């Protein structure tokens, strides 16, 4: 068994940017007018867990990007969150995000405040309605490939367990936007002293592990799409789910 310390050391020893780095998993976080940077530690943890648990090669540090950044499309995985409301996107941001999602980008929206009908929840629904008016948020069924892209999971916990499921905007049957009201990366966030910033409620450490698995599955889905829906996997997975 490889220790956590060894893995962290190995990850830290990765070159800053070398050949093949552009193809690695590099989380990007959306800079907006609200509290956009509350989960950079969680994103780092997500990348680290991805490196530790899977064969995916990562760069740990998240790249802050505004939605109208000309290099936004070099980062196919995008994280958007806030604690509370955030100002509306500019028209250029709306159009660039629409292009990003249409041509293959993946956006994970995470309600850091666990809000429902107000705060971040109201703001993100408002903005997504502008970006993808033809693809409204819909509840993802538990049979969706996101729940089996690496770990077999049947719920969508985060720091909270407000909603048992995820919502998504589908573009050509692909979940281009996934939205959680449970603050998934809040469960992975550490403070400056290196301790967990939040205690997941109500499940504690066990819920944190499931939140980690959900976050990893989301990253795997962004990288592999519906790979685990291939015919070769289905019988095995169905058998394991029984």
């Amino acid at each position, binding site marked *: 068994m490889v220790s956590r310390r060894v893995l962290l050391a190995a990850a830290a020893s990765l070159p800053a940017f070398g050949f*093949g780095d552009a*193809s690695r998993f590099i989380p990007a976080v959306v800079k907006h007018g609200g509290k956009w940077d509350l989960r950079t530690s969680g994103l780092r943890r997500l990348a680290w867990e991805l490196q530790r648990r899977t064969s995916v090669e990562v760069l740990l540090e998240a790249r802050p990007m505004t939605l109208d950044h000309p290099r936004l499309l070099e980062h196919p995985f995008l994280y958007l969150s806030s604690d509370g409301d955030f100002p509306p996107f500019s028209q250029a941001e709306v159009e660039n995000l629409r292009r990003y999602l249409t041509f293959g980008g993946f956006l994970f929206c995470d309600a850091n405040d666990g809000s429902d009908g107000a705060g971040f929840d109201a703001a993100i629904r408002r903005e997504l309605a502008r970006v993808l008016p033809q693809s409204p948020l819909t509840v993802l069924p538990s049979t969706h490939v996101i729940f089996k892209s690496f770990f077999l999971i049947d719920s969508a916990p985060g720091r909270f367990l407000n909603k048992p499921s995820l919502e998504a905007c589908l573009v050509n049957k692909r979940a281009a936007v996934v939205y959680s009201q449970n603050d998934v990366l809040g469960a992975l966030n550490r403070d400056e002293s290196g301790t967990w910033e939040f205690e997941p409620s109500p499940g504690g450490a066990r819920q944190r592990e499931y939140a980690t698995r959900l976050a990893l599955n989301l990253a795997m889905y962004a990288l592999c*799409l519906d790979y685990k829906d291939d015919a070769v996997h289905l019988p095995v997975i169905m058998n394991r789910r029984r």
Partner: protein
Amino acid sequence: MESIDTWKLVSLSPHPLLVVVALSVALVFGVGLACWGVRRESSPRRRWLLWTLRVLAGLCAFFFLVEPGLRRLQVARVKNRVAVLVDRSGSMNFPVEPRGVTRNEAVAKALEALAPQTDALKDRYAFETYGFDPELGATTVEGLRAQPPRSGRSDLFAALRAIKAGEGGGARKLAGVILFSDGADNADLASGLSGRPKQVLEQLGVPVTTVAVGKGGLTDLAIDAVRVDDFAFVRNSITAEVELHGRGFADQAVQVVLKREGQVVASKTATFTSNDETQTVKFTFTPDQTGRFVYTVSVPVYPEEVVAENNTRSFALKVIRDRVRVLLVSGRPSWDERFLRGVLRADANVELISFYILRNQLDDSGVSQGNEPRELSLIPFPREEIFQKKIDTFDVIIVLNFGHEDQGVSLAAFRNDIERYVRNGGAFAYLGGDRSFGEAQSSINPFDEVLPVTTAGTAELAPFVAKLTLQGATHPITALASGTVSSEAAWAAFPAIPGMNLTRPREGSTVLLTHPTAQVDGQPAPLLTISELGRGRTLAIGTDGTWYWAFPSHAGGGQGRNYERFWSNAIRWLVRDPDLTTLSVTADPSSVEPGKPVGVVVVARQPDYQPAPGAKVSVELIDADDGHVVAQQAGEAAADGTIRLEFPPPEPGAYKVVGRATKDDKPLGESSDAVAVRAVGPELADARVNAALLEDVAKATGGAFFDAPSFNLSDVPLREPPLVEVGRSKDQPLWDRWYWLSMLVVVVGLEWAVRRRFGYV
């Protein structure tokens, strides 16, 4: 013509018919009035007496009005025609029985034997002898012997319709048809008498007497038919059903062999249980390459056989793709894999099977080992299944950045399987990255033998925009737009790729894209290199950053689909899509009857796929079994780049037609097709006598059937000849006799006396 006397009753009245009719009507009216006048007579006896006398008087008056007479005539019976039809098809050269005379000679003898009987009927029937091949032509016994039958077609239905159609033109009516044939029809009645032909023959109006010529007992082995679809899907099994007819082969086993252009594909044994039996032998085989191929089914030729040529039968089979079956293997999840997967999944012509290494040996899933099967969705990487058992089921194998030294996923053990797969016609593509070539973890590259490049050092890190080479500017893989200039512009518009592996092209490979500045051995470092290996094709891209062509290329608002087009082109080139060639050669038709020329249509296109008018085209006809050139033709393409060439009829067998073209001394490529020239046509393929068909024809038309050429004409149903008036007629009056007049006077006088006696005026 024999004359005889006969008579008939006629009216000799000099008045016109209209007058006679008018007077007759007036007479009936007068009798009616006379009867009406005594309707009040109280005594029924008197009334009936008066009515009887008045009607009798009216009848007498009518008799004298019509003036009947007897006309004496002299008549004669006209001769009718009897058409004797003789089958002149090639199968009439077969013997009637083993070591017997030919069927044609048997007919000649039968006609000689019938001569006395036809002479006896010559005053009533004119016997006319015709041969049909299948055109009708008058013939004689001497003519039958002088010219052996040689027609390649037996068409009994057409011959009968022709003889019936000729009836209207002659003065003599057709009294019947006597048909001599072996019944081996290979036209409308090939599958028996039914449907419209049966209806037509039933309404022919002429009895057709059929005479079967030939007996059973012949020794012959014939491949009657090969039932197989016109096309098959590559790497999918197809079944060819061979109908083998054995006559005189009871309790014998016969070896049936299926070959593809000289190479044995399969062989089977058929055992006959009787002396006249048809066996169906099924060959199920799996074509492993697209294109058109000639397959030949053959059985041995035995010395006692009647026909040797029907022991072989060839057919052309076009092998096409169903959906392109692509195996995508990725060393790890990456953005290159993600966007390539997106393209392949969206392509309706692609069936994608993918395996990604989601976890390495050192990775810790965070799940205790006992719970892993329950909590992880991972499955073992079925290397043996994919790269040994089922490798031949894939049209294309694409491997991404796979340089594992982990023994759990390494493919080093399958390098020979992969090489064999490619050499046998498979397609292989490799995309590099940080675990490939100079950056690979493993010292053994399992794909080394098949890749068109070798490692040339560590990676080039600087981002760059790929540059088309001279070959790439005209190659279908890199043709992203119509025309070289547009393609170059499309490649130049792609965003920079973040670095690439340094590789060196192998000898014989073609570099299509290069780094704009980095060099290997003094040449621009290759990015996209292709090659052919055996019958297969390979492609290598020295980067895992091709997804930059897919996603970041849309950053500036671009809507193009050049990444999709590039991969579509690459897949089509890898699987040798026929539409992706500049030269197309098609045998027309692909199966040629014996003695017919072999036609070939060539379509020449320029490197940008525009027609190549004036292209110099040469085509070789090559024996597919031994590879020697049988004939050669050349010509110049028309304005649409098309030309049709014809070869004189070659010997029966399987051939390849290989075409080459040049335009302005630049080669446009080479292409080939296959053509089967049959050994025998349908006429000689079958030596049997189809007596059942002849019997059915006789039944449908009201004729008789004889199973041998010896019969009596008296047993042949013929229509009777009609009678016609040939002499003068003589009229003899019947009305001008005294007793007829006396009867009239007596009846009228009696009526007057009775009327007066009863008190009428």
